[in-house]
């Protein structure tokens, strides 16, 4: 059943094949024989490409099946071929054999076609492959090219031009200064490259100009140098002649009594002064000349020694080095020798450290009344400080222990400026220098070396501690701020302070002499004030000064009633202290008095202690406290007229006596106990207010009355 249609189809294919074969065989008949093969091949190739290989495959299978069925049929027929109509059978068999053979032809054809196809596809494949290879090559080439180009690009980008290193003038300035022809603002404003070029050009131009200028100046410099050289030669030639003239004129000078030579010699000596003293000498001399004829400035000391010291100082730098070398290498050999001389060497080093320069600057400050003060400035070469020795020359001798003490050399200039007591060296390094050779504090050498006041350093141009000096000298400081902590003397420092120091010393001398006279009088038991201010006190004062004696700072500090004043730092170590005892009847008032070292700028401080019906002081009795206030706070009322400072201490003391009178008289008036002291001072009320204050304030009206504050 199934085989039937297949058979039919087979037939049609066979017919077609036949048709095809016939059609194919027909045309080559016309072509020449030699080309037949070629033609056939060409035709077959065309056919192979025209036909669908899928269909050919189906055809091939069918053909194979047909052949199989034919074979089977033939074998069947052969099997049956046993006798009966064998003829028929044989015919069938040959018939079928023919059919099968034909089918083989078809198979052959198909096979051939297939061969062709395979060949063509293989060719095509090869062709494609070649194509692909060539493309690949091309691609490689292109990639390489890209890489190369990229490298080139980065090279370009990394390129640095020389002009970037040149510092150009800013653009605004360039446009302002460069000529129009160079700057071409119409182009360069928009084109930054052009702008750059233009700026570079301008730079070049300018540099060229400057180079020319430089050359010119150099030439000018050379000519000037030559001129100087020639002039110097001329001057050098002049010196011997001048010397001759001087030599010749000396007798004339001596004859006429001109001090020219003396001054010159002083100046010559000044050249050998150490730097700080030289600064001091120059400044002080200048000040003397300009402002203060009563001042004398002189150089004294051994000039020869100074010269040799200078010589040795010049060598010392070299010597010191070689010295230390020797110490190292020659140590072993010299050890024995050394042991002997060690103490000597140390002694020598000590001496050398404390060495004073042989020259001193002596400044004498004279007052109108003939009293004078001599300041000898020494310079300690290795400690780098200036010290002062003071000598007071009086027209009139001062007697009395406490009075003399006030103008004693070690005392008179103490605390010329606040805190400047001169107790230790202002050069902090000295402490270590002294320690290294086993010497004591600087303070213990002051009697020998002189007092190292800070102002002495400053007038010599030395400024050790900017900060400290500021508080000491206040306003004169401004200009010297830049010379902060230097060892080299600075003229500015000296300039800034010479005048103020000289004035301060003069004032101090005056004040001290005045104070001296007062103390001298007080020691003798006299309390007197000049007539001009006598009216500030009542005419009759009953209290008297029974004793006056100096006491030490420790005595003052350790007294039981002074604690408040000491703690408030109203008095300190540099001041001078006295104990005054005032007496009236059974009442005894002890006043501990602290005369400030800058008296009378700061008034004297009183601390009172009354012994009368018990012990009274500012610490337990408000009336005594008020009395103390009267002296310590309201002292300004005692001040009046010119020269008040000269008698302030006496005035304060007189005031204290008046106050004690008032206290005693008013106490009698308030208590119910019988008054010991008659009331002879005039006051309206003995006490006033809740504090029961006493009428200590004195008014000059109506013959003098006392009122409450």
């Amino acid at each position, binding site marked *: 059943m199934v085989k039937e249609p297949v058979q039919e189809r087979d037939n049609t294919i066979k017919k077609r094949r036949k048709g095809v074969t016939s059609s194919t065989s027909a045309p080559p008949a016309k072509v020449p024989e030699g080309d037949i093969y070629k033609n056939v091949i060409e035709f077959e190739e065309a056919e192979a490409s025209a036909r669908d290989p899928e269909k050919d495959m189906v055809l091939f299978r069918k053909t194979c099946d047909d052949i199989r069925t034919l074979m089977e049929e033939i074998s069947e027929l052969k099997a049956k071929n046993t006798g009966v109509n064998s003829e028929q059978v044989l015919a069938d068999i040959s018939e079928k054999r023919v059919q099968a053979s034909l089918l083989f032809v078809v198979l052959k054809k198909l096979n051939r076609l297939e061969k062709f196809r395979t060949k063509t596809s293989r060719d095509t494949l090869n062709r494609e492959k070649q194509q692909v290879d060539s493309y690949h090559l091309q691609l490689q080439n292109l990639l390489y090219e890209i890489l190369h180009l990229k490298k080139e690009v980065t090279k370009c980008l990394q390129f640095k031009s020389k002009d970037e290193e040149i510092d150009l003038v800013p653009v605004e300035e360039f446009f302002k200064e460069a000529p129009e022809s160079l700057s071409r603002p119409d182009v360069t404003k928009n084109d930054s490259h052009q702008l750059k070029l233009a700026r570079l050009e301008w730079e070049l131009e300018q540099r060229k100009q400057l180079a020319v200028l430089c050359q010119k100046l150099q030439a000018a410099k050379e000519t000037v140098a030559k001129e100087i050289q020639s002039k110097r030669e001329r001057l050098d030639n002049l010196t011997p002649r001048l010397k001759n003239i001087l030599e010749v004129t000396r007798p004339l000078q001596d004859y006429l009594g001109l001090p020219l030579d003396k001054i010159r010699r002083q100046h010559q000596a000044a050249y050998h002064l150490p730097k700080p003293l030289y600064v001091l000498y120059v400044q002080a001399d200048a000040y003397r000349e300009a402002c203060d004829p009563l001042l004398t400035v002189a150089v004294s000391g051994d000039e020869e020694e100074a010269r040799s010291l200078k010589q040795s100082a010049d060598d010392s730098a070299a010597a010191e080095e070689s010295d230390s070398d020797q110490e190292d290498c020659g140590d072993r050999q010299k050890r024995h020798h050394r042991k002997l001389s060690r103490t000597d060497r140390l002694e020598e080093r000590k001496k050398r450290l404390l060495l004073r320069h042989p020259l001193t600057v002596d400044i004498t400050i004279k007052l109108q009344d003939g009293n004078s003060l001599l300041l000898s400035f020494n310079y300690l070469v290795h400690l780098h400080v200036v010290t002062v020795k003071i000598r007071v020359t009086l027209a009139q001798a001062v007697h009395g222990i406490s009075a003399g003490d006030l103008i004693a050399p070690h005392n008179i200039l103490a605390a010329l400026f606040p805190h400047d007591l001169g107790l230790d060296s202002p050069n902090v390094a000295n402490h270590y220098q002294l320690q290294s050779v086993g010497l004591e504090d600087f303070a213990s050498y002051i009697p020998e070396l002189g007092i190292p006041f800070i102002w002495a350093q400053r007038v010599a141009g030395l400024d050790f501690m900017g900060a400290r000096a500021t508080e000491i000298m206040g306003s004169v400081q401004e200009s010297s701020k830049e010379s902060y902590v230097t060892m080299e003397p600075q003229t500015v420092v000296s300039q800034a302070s010479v005048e103020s120091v000289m004035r301060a010393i003069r004032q101090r001398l005056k004040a001290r002499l005045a104070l001296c006279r007062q103390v001298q009088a007080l020691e003798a038991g006299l309390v007197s004030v000049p007539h001009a201010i006598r009216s500030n006190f009542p005419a009759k004062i009953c209290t008297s000064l029974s004793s006056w004696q100096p006491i030490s700072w420790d005595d003052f500090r350790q007294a039981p009633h002074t604690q408040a004043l000491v703690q408030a730092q109203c008095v300190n170590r540099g001041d001078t202290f006295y104990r005054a005892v005032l007496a009236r009847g059974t009442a005894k008032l002890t006043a501990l008095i602290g005369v400030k070292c800058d008296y009378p700028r700061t008034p004297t401080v009183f601390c009172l202690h009354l012994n009368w019906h018990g012990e009274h002081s500012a610490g337990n009795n408000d009336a005594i406290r008020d009395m103390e206030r009267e002296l310590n706070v309201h002292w300004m009322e005692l001040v009046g007229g010119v020269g008040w400072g000269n008698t302030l201490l006496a005035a304060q003391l007189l005031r204290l006596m008046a106050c004690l009178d008032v206290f005693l008289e008013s106490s009698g008036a308030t208590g119910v106990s019988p008054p010991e002291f008659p009331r002879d001072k005039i006051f309206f*009320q003995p006490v006033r207010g809740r504090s029961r204050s006493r009428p200590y304030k004195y008014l000059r009206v109506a013959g003098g009355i006392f009122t409450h504050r």
Partner: protein
Amino acid sequence: MVDKLLYNTILSQTFSPCGSYLLVGNTYGDIAVYDLQKILSPGDGLTPSCRKAEYHFSVKQDVQICSLVTTEKFLLIGMVGEITGWDWKTITYSKNPKLAFSIQIPTAKDALEKPDVNSMLYCKTNGHIYAGCGDNKIYIFSLEDGKLIRTMEGHDDYIHSIHNIGSQLVSASEDGSVRLWDLKQEAHTNTVQPYLSDKLARPELGKWIGAASLSEDWLLCGGGPRLSLWHLRSLDVTTAFQLDDSGIHVAMFYDDRIMAGGASPYFYNLSYTGDTYAQIPSSSISVYTAVFQETPLKVMCMAGSSCKIDLCTNFSYRDQILTFAS
């Protein structure tokens, strides 16, 4: 140069109406204002032993400030010859105090000195100011218009202190007497003279009475004579306090106790029978003023002849010391 504050004397103190400021006046005419809230606030880590004033203002240079009194709106300052009123708002808020008014104390034409206003009281109920003055008189002014309402005369010397309770007023004077006044009557009702009593007299100190105070049943006074407690109706000395002082300047009742101070190293906290509850060490040589308040901060402040002010919060020991310096 000796700082004048070393000899500072404080005669009066007062609290602001809100209670958080303390005002202190000295004899140089300056008033220091302290912020108590700030000073007493606990937990302040860096408590310096001496606290400074918030600010100062000068009422009148070198005219002593004798008394200070607080009313709701004004601070009254008793000075020499006048009472000035200052608006509290300008003191506590703006630190720029403004003078609001002043009342002149009437003086006799022949008087050479103006009288000090040594002690002042303010009566809230009738709005009157009582001023015990240096001319031996007590003046009563109306706060509303500043007019003098009444003058009470009788003392022979100046008035140290006055105190009132209800309509009863007591005055202590330099003449050694303590006088009791009834505001409804013209003359004084009673006089006490402690210096006449052997138990109380201290002749070396004088007869003056520096302070007097009243309670319902008791009268407290002291000065040159010893501090003493008197029974008001019988006017007998109940207790004579044996204190180590040389003059009493402050005496007051507080909560069944007696507070007293003066020229003594201590401020005393005493019982009516004479026992000492507490001795508070004083920074001043003499205590001239002590003020206390309960609210908003419980504090007592004592000051006198010193630039320091002692503060105690529990009335038995010294907590803090303020200084007048700025």
